[in-house]
């Protein structure tokens, strides 16, 4: 079975992020664009842990670059658990979530994303993505 845990575009976990999250940047003098998505599961009886050492290792969200050297660098993306945390976050750094994340709307974890283009190269860059570490989902 597929994981019920994943990224959702709303706090109520009704809309999974099924296609690429879009960020628009101006070529010249781009301004940072912030967006928040949620990580969680709408199933209240489930929980999610890192598969490497469940309950000990944290769940992490990394920024993967499928085409390093082209498109956008991972450093153009910052992740944080709060909007205020985006200022202090380092571009390209993974985001550390709790060791155990329970299912249900109330336990959804907001993930704040800030994108600020550094390439100033007109075009559409689809090389970046958010990816969690290997996860183990089970009944809570």
């Amino acid at each position, binding site marked *: 079975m597929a994981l*019920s845990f994943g990224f959702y*575009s709303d706090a109520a976990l009704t*809309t999974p992020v099924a296609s690429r999250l879009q*960020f628009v940047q101006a070529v010249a003098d781009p301004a940072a664009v912030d967006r928040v998505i949620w990580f969680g599961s709408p199933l*209240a009886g489930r929980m999610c842990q890192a598969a490497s050492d469940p309950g000990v290792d944290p769940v992490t969200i990394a920024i993967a670059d499928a085409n390093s050297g082209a498109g956008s660098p991972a450093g153009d993306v910052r992740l944080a658990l709060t909007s205020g945390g985006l200022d202090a976050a380092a571009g390209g750094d993974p985001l550390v979530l709790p060791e155990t994340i329970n299912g249900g709307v109330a336990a959804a974890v907001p993930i704040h994303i800030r*994108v600020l283009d550094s390439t100033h190269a007109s*075009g559409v860059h*689809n090389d970046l993505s958010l990816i969690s570490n290997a996860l183990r989902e089970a*009944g809570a």
Partner: protein
Amino acid sequence: MAAFDGSAFDASFDIGGGGAGGVDTGAATAGLSISVVSPLVFSSSSGSISWAPLVVVGAVDVSARLSGSLKISAAEDSARVATLTLIPASAADLDGYEGQAVTIDVTLFRTGQAATWRLFTGCVERSEFSLSERLVTLSCRDGWQERPAACASAAQVEALLGGLATTSGRLLPWSDAEPDPVAYFNGLLETIPGATAIDSSGVWQVVRWDIGAPAATFPAGEVFDGSIDVITAARADVPSAVHATLAVRGHRLHSAEVDVDWNAVHYSLYILHGLPTLQKATVLDALGAVSGWGIRGTPAIVEPTPGSYGPVNGSYYLVSAEQAALICQSFTATLYRRWYQEAEIVYSITVDAGGASSRDDSVRASISSDFDASAWESAPRAAAISPIYAANDPHPPSGTPTGYEGLPEPHPPTNSGVDHFGDITTPDLQAAVSQVVARAMRRAAAGRRRRTVRFARPLDPRWEIGAVLAINAGGVSATGQVSEVEHEMNVESGALSSTFTLAVPDGNGAATGYTATASVPANSVIHNLPDQHLTNWVGSSFETIPDPDPDTVQGFLCNVDPRSDNYDSEAPAYVTQFRLVMPDIAAPLRDPLTVETAITGAVTVSSGSLEINF
């Protein structure tokens, strides 16, 4: 045993509270698309632009199968909808469209520039297949209706409205036992100085109805010729004013006191006329039987001094100690009455809605106190003294006795009244008043925002609901806020356009908002009921008044002994009694009461601009 070790066993038998028992592994992913865009892509200067749509239904790219026109439209407080037509790959596809996730992107190309923009994120609502054309038309919409319905708490609903809603637990309560998030959302939506929408990327947005500096201004060269319309609201659609009223139903509680006193006749009349004495029990019975009135504390009854009085005409009036203990020589007492009036405080404000019609709109709401005024009024006074101990009560009452011990609170000031609203607190009142005014504000703002300017230009997906744009073309100069947007792309002709509707309200401020405060009006109730100085009324006497006003016949009513020289068999004879008639409470102090008071506040509607020259 090896078979029962390891993760395979754990996974097979792992069950969770309420959840499915299986263990799943994997990773969560979400792709990012960063579109680095030059504004030159949206320039209408001479040159050529090409475009390509990317439509994904479910996980299938159907872009190559599109046919005809592709339309996307969005408006405030409603779902974004998209309509597209495509050639199904097979008959089996027809069963699989409904409910599938849909994204629509467009990539614009201009020499040396490219921009990809998402235009729609939603799901297929309905599919219609035309057999003759072998085309299927998909009607899609985003999750604007589903988002509120998925909320599990009041806080989640309020968060959807971005903190702009004015809440009132009295007027619009949330029930954890029977949650109705949609109704709660719709109720709160009527109070926000703005609108909601889901943007093209599927992100819920709350925009304030504030019109500041425009993000872009489009001159004539950026707008399609003949596409500009200026629309004013029909007179019937916009009221001239919105009256907002909040009725707060509670009680005005009254308290009044009347002092009562009486003195016995001279002892000689007992000898000469054979008058009876007034018994203490008769007095107490009479005082306790006055309808609606109670005895404050304990009446002060004075007994006669035992002894022999006289002689009068050779006779004596004798009072033994045993008789004296039963006789009332004089007394003073205070009788009280507490009663309530149903009181309705009506708070109101009138908001100018800017309409030219003579019709007024109204926002009405009411809240009611749960105070049981009837029980408050009728509760008997409890004794302050313990019924167990005759003396040396181990738990004597504290403080100075008031004579009102045991009566339920509140205690209005003596001979006055107090407005009591039970469980309605001052914050409750303020929140309710604010919500009523907020609703009036939104109606007024919505009415004024019906003045719109609509124009079309080449596809421009940069602007979402709430964006502030300006136009200066075709003799129309206007600045307003995008309230509707429609994108249309024709796959066959290559034509593409965006139509924007700008709300250009004739407002009265820079921001849409309100202020509202209300307080309970002071009452000036004073009761001044006359004291009752009771007397003695002797019947069957030559001195008996032949036809007194019955209302004045109060006190001790008795008759001359028939053996007395003063006995008159033709004079009116009284029924022996102690009679007490208390003053009436005037109708204006008893009947339901309505007090009108104004809400102190103001409503502002952010103003756009519109100028027409031709």
